[in-house]
């Protein structure tokens, strides 16, 4: 678990921590690739006592979130109150990693043939949706930035992460580890990576109008 994100997300809400203010509406893009050194696929604990459990695919734990440590003040007023979903399918949370902005509601539909539960003990974001049957959906609005480990009380092998940001400048890496953060106001920023598998050194980047900045990372344990 990387402890930095919570601190940084809180810092991001503080005007004192903001980077240089953009003077024009033009923006730039940050893109790159995150390389994971460690092996990263797992299906979690074996379901020894289950009868007819679902065929569990390996979870790709290599996905990361790349984000700005701090953002321009205007970014905090532009957040949309979105609604996204984290499905429960084949006794897995799909997607395994979700990045959202504060005020977003996450729906947790149960698309399996068994009961599920969704809970987290994250400080400031603890919740427990209780048990609910197939076909039902539980939901939770996240109003506090932070890292939120998600679990199922019934199936101990199920896990996921939700990262809640107070600004919109973040991206989840794709299958190849690539990411793109668009519409970044010009300025100098510290670029961070969160991964459940390890740490990456932060990078300092400067974004100019209409330009694309490349920034690659290497995550190691």
């Amino acid at each position, binding site marked *: 678990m990387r402890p930095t994100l919570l601190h940084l997300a809180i810092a991001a809400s503080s005007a004192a921590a903001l980077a240089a203010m953009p003077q024009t509406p033009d923006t730039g893009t940050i893109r790159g690739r995150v390389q994971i050194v460690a092996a990263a*696929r*797992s*299906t*979690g*604990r*074996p379901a*020894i*006592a*289950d*009868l*007819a*459990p*679902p*065929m569990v*695919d*390996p979870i790709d734990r290599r996905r990361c979130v790349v984000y700005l440590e701090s953002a321009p003040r205007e970014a905090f007023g532009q957040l949309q109150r979105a609604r996204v979903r984290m499905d429960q399918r084949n006794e897995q949370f799909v997607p395994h990693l979700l990045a959202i902005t504060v005020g977003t509601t996450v729906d947790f539909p149960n698309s399996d*043939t*068994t*009961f599920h539960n969704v*809970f*987290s*003990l994250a400080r400031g974001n*603890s*919740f*427990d949706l*209780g*048990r*609910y*049957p*197939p*076909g039902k959906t539980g939901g939770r609005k996240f109003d506090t930035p932070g890292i939120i*480990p998600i*679990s199922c009380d019934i199936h*101990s*092998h199920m*896990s996921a992460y939700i990262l809640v940001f107070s600004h919109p400048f973040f991206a989840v890496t794709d299958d190849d580890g690539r990411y793109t953060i668009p519409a970044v106001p010009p300025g100098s920023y510290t670029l961070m990576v969160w991964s459940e598998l390890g740490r990456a050194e932060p990078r300092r980047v400067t974004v100019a109008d209409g330009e694309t900045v490349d920034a690659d990372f290497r995550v190691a344990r």
Partner: protein
Amino acid sequence: MPSIMVRGSWGTLALAVVVLLGAFAGPAAGDPQETPAPSSAPRVTGGGEVTAVAGPEDDQAFFNYTDYEHNALRVLRVRLLGEWRIWQRLSLLGEARTENGDGVQIPALYLRWQPWRDHNFDVQIGRIPPVIGSFPRRAYGRDNVVVGSPLPYQYLISLRPDALPATIDQLLRMRGRGWQPSYPIGSQALGPGIPVVSSFRWDTGAEASWRNQWMELAGAVTLGAPATPVVQDPSDGQQYSGRIAMHAPGGLTVGLSGARGGWINRSVLNLVPESLRGRHNQTVVGVDAEAGVGPWLVRAEWLHSSFELPFVGETVQPAPLVADSAFVEGRYRFHPRWQIAARVDHLGFSTLVGTINNGAPTTWDAPVERVEGILGFRARRNVEIRGGYQYNWRDGGRVHEQGYPTLMGLFWF
């Protein structure tokens, strides 16, 4: 682990179960059988659980002894679970377990074959999960709502598979002494009785299971009996067990299960007249229900078990010995970290008439009642602490009632 012998009829029946359940689980259009497993699927995965229960000594009443001769309220149990994916949808699963450091047990070791990727159907062969009831598949720390186990799955009754009473009186003298009954026929070594259904040891054989959103079906053919799972066949005949469960809208699941198998060791049966050797089966019928909505979880289970027993010294053989049990348990999670839970439990027995007790009908073992409640705290996702109290009443034995404070720490990974 000893090798598993498969005899002709045994194998045929196992195949029949597989075919029957397979009929429900045929592949849908599009042939998902051809769906390849992910090339990067992990070959080996694992997990574990450490349970530490601190309770007082129980060497007078023996209310909480298990079939491993351990006190369930005073135990340090370490479980290691592993799965080796041998080929796409074929895995080898196993568990190694030690209690109080007394050697390593292998309570589970089996092959799981999932013929169709998109259907919840599997065949399991080896030392496999039990089909009967619902508690045995969630008997360990995190799935058990309190600290102790339900009476039918843990409390030792006064029967032994390796020793038999010759008369009704000899059996009645052992009422309330399931922790160490002794009988004249068979083993003269000291040994424990058996639970009505064993939840800490699994039986050896083959099983097929299927489930969808509304229904679960499972059938198994194994070597032992519900009370006496084995890895080698010590008795005549096999155990046949099955379960059907229905999921009703709104969060109610009701299951009906049954099992029948020989529970007396063949070496002991050989000591009784041939005309009585057919009296060796245990038959169990069970109904279980579970309702869970939001922070509430309520479960109930009823088991009716009958043990056939040859009484060499009786001219008229009595009816099979019946053990009836029922329990209701509930949990309320009033905070993401906090929960309260309780269980009310009963285990009763049919009556026999001997010369003891002036010839009055007497239950063949001492009925037991138990209540238990806990307060649980979830320190982390995988760390839990529970404290509570359990009280037992028994109509017989050296100690008729006894209470125990309980404290459990649980960690799984």
